[in-house]
Structure formats: C-alpha cells, structure tokens
C-alpha cells in the first residue's frame, strides 16, 4: 500500500541533517523504515526518526545527490510513502547503552524515547565529526537520557571516536543491551567492546534497497535481507557475515567496498 502525503514540517537539525515530518497513520515501531517516493525522481528507504502517533518523520543526512534532493523538499510538497517495513528494536532491556555515529541517532532516538517512556534507563554515547553535527542531543537530554559526547575534532566532549566513549561506559557501568547505528566499522568496534562483558548488541544496518519486500536482493547481506530480516540485527547474527563492515551492493548488484 502506498499513500501520498504533504510534508507538514521541515527542520534543519544540524548543518548536514534535515528532518521531514508528514501525516502517516499506519502504526510503526522504532527501528522500522518507510520507502519515501519523490515523484519524478526516486524512492528511498528511510528509518523513521519519529514513530509515534500520526505525525511520522524521517531524518536525512546529506550524503549523495539523492539525499540532497530529499533534503530540498519543502513544506507542502507531496511525497509517496509505503511501509513501515522491517523489524524493530526490542525495548525490554532495563539499562540500555545507545551508541550513535553521525546520523545513526535518527533511528536510535525514537527507540530511546519509548524506552524512557516505560522507565528504562538510557545512556547515550553520541558521536559526530564536530559539535554542530551532534544529532538529537537535546532530544536525548529532554527524554531524560544521560548523554556523553565524542567529536572527531574535539569541539565538544571527548576528542576522537565515539567507540572510545562506549568502551569506557561499558567498562564502568552495567548494561543489559547496546543499541547502535552508524558506520559499520564503528558498529563492529562496539560489538567487540561489548563481547567480553556479554552485553548483547543490536545494530541497525543500512543497504541499497529497491523493493523493500524481500524480493529484489539489492539489500542482501550474507543469508539475510536487510529489508525483511532487519534493519535491526543482533550482533551474533552478523558474526559469520563477511559483508558486514566490508561491502554493500550497488544498484546493479555489484559488490562495492564500504
């Protein structure tokens, strides 16, 4: 099913990320994604950054030409939406460590929000290239999460990778689960840091997608399809998957290094 909706709100979250809000009634859970159709242009998978109620939202980072065109949509513009698709974060763990790299916070924030709403404790290791690029810092603080920041250039928080912050938190505090989204090299490091402490890690993955229905194989990763078996994968499922952190497939199905 597909709906055509008008954008109700456009928010510039950081210099490179934009949130688009639109009315879309089908219920959704944190971790799931929708296919957003820009008529006459393209249709792309986007994790929902706002999952609750009718006013859904996606948050996009400017990466290539297409994501820039998505960002350039204005309030009142019409887009096609289908979904939500994919699985969701298990929100039952009591003490959660959220590790976000760059725009990873887009999918992690709504999960953290729901966890907080049911009294879970949430600690966020929030990473970005520089301070103005820290995505949803205020949102995490508002929901009552404790936030630790890392920036590549040291303009805020710890200078360096967010994985260092995550490792420190894992060695000093008890957690029941880690939720992470960001570059796959980063997520691999998070998995490695959590492994000796036996804390289960859940990674939200991104792949090129066409059908989002488990047919076209564009998002194949190992024996899985990110669109129907993911996007959220427990780390142990990814253990034997050699694509993870190594390559994805382009529009032709050709392997391309990440």
């Amino acid at each position: 099913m597909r709906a055509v909706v008008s954008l109700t709100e456009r928010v510039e979250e950081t210099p490179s990320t934009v949130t688009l809000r639109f009315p879309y009634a089908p219920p959704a859970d944190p971790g799931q994604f929708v296919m957003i159709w820009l008529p006459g242009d393209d249709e792309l998978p986007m994790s929902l950054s706002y999952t609750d109620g009718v006013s859904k939202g996606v948050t996009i980072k400017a990466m290539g030409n297409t994501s820039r065109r998505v960002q350039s949509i204005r309030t009142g513009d019409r887009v096609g939406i289908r979904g939500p698709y994919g699985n969701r974060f298990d929100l039952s763990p009591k003490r959660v460590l959220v590790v976000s790299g760059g725009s990873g916070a887009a999918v992690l924030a709504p999960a953290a929000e729901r966890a907080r709403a049911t009294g879970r404790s949430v600690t966020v290791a929030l990473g970005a290239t520089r301070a103005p690029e820290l995505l949803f810092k205020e949102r995490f603080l508002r929901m009552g999460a404790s936030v630790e920041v890392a920036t590549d250039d040291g303009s805020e928080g710890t200078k360096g990778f967010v994985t260092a912050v995550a490792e420190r938190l894992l060695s000093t505090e008890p957690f029941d689960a880690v939720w992470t989204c960001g570059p796959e090299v980063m997520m691999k490091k998070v998995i490695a840091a959590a492994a000796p402490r036996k804390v289960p890690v859940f990674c939200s993955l991104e792949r090129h997608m066409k059908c989002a229905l488990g047919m076209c194989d564009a998002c194949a990763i190992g024996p899985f399809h990110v669109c129907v078996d993911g996007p959220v994968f427990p780390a142990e499922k990814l253990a034997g998957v050699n694509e993870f952190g190594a390559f994805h497939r382009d529009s032709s199905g050709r392997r391309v290094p990440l």
Partner: protein
Amino acid sequence: MAELGVRLAGVSLRNPFLLASGVWGESGESLAGAWRAGAGGVITKSIGSDVRPGYPNPTIEAYERWGLLNAMGLPNPGIDEYPREIEIARKAGATVIGSIFGGDAEEFARLAVRMAATGVVALELNLSCPHAEGFGTEVGSTPENVEKVVRAVTRAVSIPVIAKITPNTSDAAGLALAAERGGASAVSAINTLRALAIDVQLRRPVLAHGLGGLSGPAIKPVGLACVWQIFEKVSVPVIGVGGIATAQDALEYVMAGARAVEVGTQVTFDGIGVFGRMANDLTRLLDGLGFARLEDAVGVAHRAARAPPA
C-alpha cells in the same frame, strides 16, 4: 510417498519447484539460501554483458497478495562479475540454472558460452522481460527471432537451453514452437504480463519506468492457458511459471503440461520457507490423488479434454 523428483531436459531435479529468475538471485548466498530452503533448483538473475543498474525507483508496486507489479529494468552486475556469486551457490550444493539476456543472437551466444563456463546445469534465455528497451520481449516477440537466438545459443553451448517465453503476444505457443525448432531443450512460460499502475493524486504512473510486468496469483490462469497451448504444440518439456502460491497451483500447471514450475512472487508474500512447504504439500496432495510420481501427472488434463463426452 509420491516421488517429486523429475528429469527435465537431462537435468535431475530433486523436486519441481525452481526459484524463478529475478527473485533473490543477485547474491550467491541468497541463491544458496533458496536451495537450503528446499527449492529443487535456483535460476539466477538475468545476466547481461555489462554492468546494468536497472531503473530508478519506484521499481515495484505491491498489491494485497494477488499481484506484484515491477519494472526493475534488468539490473545485474554483468557477466564478468557474476560468476563468483554462482560459485557460492554451487559450493552450497545448489542446482543452478543461469539466466541470460542479450540484444541479439550474437550477444546471447557470447553470454551463453560465458555462463556455461560457470558450471550451471542449464541456461534459461530471457526472451520475455516486458519492460527493458532492446531486450527481453523486444527480442523474443517473433518466432523468427526466437528461433534465431535459440539456434545461436544451442550451437554455442552443450548444456540444455531453456527458452523463457513471453505471454505478451497473440501466440505464445508459436514462440515455443520456434524455440523448439531452434534446438531448445525446454521452454518456460510465462514471464510477467505487461502492466501499469497510476497514482491518481499525482496523476502519473507509479513506476519510474511507467510500464512494468505483473506477477503473482492474478496471472496464474493466464500462465495455465499458455502452458496448456504450448504443451499441445511442442514435444520438449515445459516449465510452468506465473502466480504459483500453493502446491495445488503447481499441480494445476503440471496437469496442464508442465514438468517443473518456477516460483518467484510468493517468496515476497510468504518468505523463502514457501519452497519447503510447497514440496511437503505437493507430496501429500499427490498421495491423496493416487499419483505415485509427479511425472505421472504431467499433462493429464489434456487426456480428459480429448476424451469423448461420457
């Protein structure tokens, strides 16, 4: 327990359910996954000479379980890149059929040689994709062209060649007959039916390419009619494709004349477990109907149709 194994153009299949081309076939691990899930064989995505990204999205419009409209545009990594994916599937033990598409007989023959060298058990020629300019149906819509392409391929390779026939024609059986004349070891029918979706609010086609191809349960009766007519005309085995969602659908195709079937769209609706399920169900169904072997049911409906009225 009825025997599901069939011989098809010299190839032994453990059961008649083949993964249809275009579904799951981009990665070797996916092909291997379909095999492990119980498919009798797997057919690769259609592979061409060059890297081809396919059409921009939207490439798909899904309907509630009765159909799927797509215009992927034959995306594929090209014959130089793809053999490594086949290797993965073959290492997993899968019976792999290689699908290829070309713009003319010479290109088909060149690709056939390359594809045969990967160790696939047979080739399927895509003469029927309804939405790719210069390929598919555009090459395979006249008996003359079909015969020419099939002849060029069968001269170039020694493995069995299956011609996949388009339903977007007035005479699918005529095309199948042309494939047989060209030396095809089998024909498969049908590919998707040319189709269109319109969004009324946006006043435009949904698919970026405009026209696409319809698959899924909606097209089963059309596929059955094509297989029926083809079976009457040709002597090579027929593979039935189009809207097979259950074991009974498969048996309908078999009774109409198919020796094997391809399943694609149902993987989207039910997941890859559909292969194991349909194989189990088909065994039970054949047992209940008193067939000792699936092969005994091939084309039986034609006998009843020919019998004088009681």
